């Protein structure tokens, strides 16, 4: 007997775990590209939850499929802007680790 796993709560748990894994990447990674990549992992989780909600609960219209499209559109733009900023950063510093972007801040007096 196969356990019943394909249900809303498991989909939500999966998506939240993805969000958590992604945010862990945001804290852990040093390379700015990798931080952006971790955000994509988070976004993947969010999209999953959107579609899952639509299927399991509100199957009268594909509203969240549309929201998914918006979400990847935004993700694309964010990636484009972020990556071009990273390239600029690389041009200026020849380095893209996050230590490069920690100069503004309080210098201890």
């Amino acid at each position, binding site marked *: 007997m196969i356990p019943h796993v394909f249900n809303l709560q498991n989909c939500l748990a999966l998506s939240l775990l993805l969000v958590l894994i992604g*945010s862990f990447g*945001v*804290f852990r990674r040093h390379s700015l590209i990798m*931080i952006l990549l971790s955000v994509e992992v988070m976004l993947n989780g969010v999209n999953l939850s959107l579609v899952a909600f639509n299927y399991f609960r509100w199957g009268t219209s594909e509203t969240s499929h549309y929201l998914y499209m918006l979400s990847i559109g935004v993700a694309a733009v964010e990636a484009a802007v972020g990556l071009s900023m990273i390239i600029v950063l690389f041009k200026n510093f020849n380095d893209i680790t*996050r230590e490069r*972007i*920690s*100069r*503004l*801040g*309080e210098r*201890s*007096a």
Partner: protein
Amino acid sequence: MNPTWLLLIPLLPGLSAALLALFGSRLPYNAIGAIASASVAGSLGLVLAFCGAGVFGAGQPIDFEAGPWIATQAFQAGLHLHLDSLSLCMCLLVSFFGFLITVYSVGYMRHDKEQGRFFASLNLFVASMLTLVLADNLVLIFLGWEGVGLCSYLLIGHYWEQEDVPLAAFRAFFVNRIGDVLFLLGVFTLFSLFGTVSLSELALHGPGLAGIHTGQAALGALLLLGGAFAKSAQAPLHVWLADAMAGPTPVSALIHAATMVTAGVYLLARLDWLYAVSPEARLIICLCGLVTLILGALMALAQTDIKKILAYSTLSNLALMFLALAAGSAGAGLMHLFGHACFKALLFLAAGSVIVAAHHEQDVRKLTGVLKKLPVTNAAFLVGCIGGAGLIPYLAAGFFSKEAVLESLSEAEFSGFGIAFSGRVVFWIVTAVELLSVVYLFRLYGYLRSDTAAGAAVAGAAGPDAHGSKAHDSHADHGHGGPIKEKSPAILAVLGILILVAFAFGIVSASHGFGGHGDVWRLITGGAAEPEGVKPDAHTFIMLGINIVLAIACFAAFSSSKRRAGVQGIVKNFRLGSFGPLSRKFYFDDVYALAIIAPLKGAAYLSRLVLENIFTGVLTMGGWLGRGFSLGLRRFQTGKAHQYAVAVLMAVFLLVFWLGGK
């Protein structure tokens, strides 16, 4: 008269202030002085015109409403001016002294660098004070309240290039801001209780409601009290008054004697119904007033700077007003407010004259005998001292107002927070402390009239550098070295007028018991039934006698350098166990030293400890604490994005978790 003219009373000096602030640096000095004086004179003229409008006493108040100023859904604060007997008296006081002091300043500041700024601040101060006095709602009062604090800051900081002056000005302003915030919180509390900020509406509906919500009413009363304490320099928010002496002397006279410091008293008198229903607030006023009274008098004894002596004497006189308010007699407090304004302005302006004549020397030990060369100033100083000590009835403003305060105290009862005591106790403490005031005032006068060669010390000190520093010195500006004499006619004229005013006030403030009419009482309380008046009973005469004898003794002791040396010797040489009967004049000196001087000295040291160190220390500690927190929080501002992200995520999780648990 058309009520619209009321608006012009604060507006005239306000406009002049704006004019001088913007274009003062391009105008010649005489024009600046003329504009500044004329605008205040205009206000004074208007106020005098309103005196004839039948407002005095029980007359009909005049109201001017220019529509809402701040109006939201919840509330309205109108641009509403209200002229009743009390506010007319206050207007008279403010515009009259404001005028005199502006004229005086024209003489005093002739050689200053930033005259435009000075007179702009002075005018703005008068405007703010007049707004405060005329306002019918607490928001408008707050406008004036904040305005006088700001001007006080500007004026105290006038010599900003001198070391310590910016800091002193800032400290004064900061304590004032504490008061402003407390005031604002008090206004908010009253608003949340009554739904209005208009004084007249509050007075109408307040007493009934306040009786129901006693807790919140008491909170409001206490918060407003905090504001009044800061403005009127009552312990523990008094620390700024001594700092304020860093400003030019006319400023000290205007702000720190006659007008600004009385704002707190005025506010409490306006809200006396609120304090009538909260005995706790009155108890706190009484206790703080007592502390301020005693500390002020003791500190005045311990000072050698002429302006600081007067400043601390102001503290203790303000405390007297608050004590009268605590006793529930706003009339007595206000009466002393006016009396005090008369003699303290006189004293400060005379002191200013002395300081100008003595080339900005302020140490009384070096000013010995200066007054002998300054006849008008001398007269003014003497009258002021007599008023301040309340020595002679009918003369010099101080006697009847002090008697009124004492009278109100002797009938009061104080209770709250589980303690209760009779006003008699306070009465006796005040009586005793008043002896101190006689001592320090006449000690000061004795010094200034001493038989030492007039201004020897000053002339000696100023002599050598008189020529060398002439070219570039910035504030030793009234001649250098040279003979000590009164030069400015403006200063002399103002002193002369003030002497007359002090006499006049002494006469009109006389109460029935002494055969006078008690006009002042009737005017300031708006025609309320006059109390029976001070009865010339035995106690009054005995105290009067003691005071006069003490004054003469003090004057005698300090006006001769030999006797002064004797007194100082007693104080200095006092050591236990090193005396013999003969050399010690049969122990008389020692008894004197042991019984009087030592306790006084000890108390003075104690009060210095408390006044200068503890209260200032608490403030400083607060500052350091804030700084410390700030530096601590700074550690979290690392500039590392991932750490910020951690913070954001943590906060979001907390939010979600908290919401999920609800």
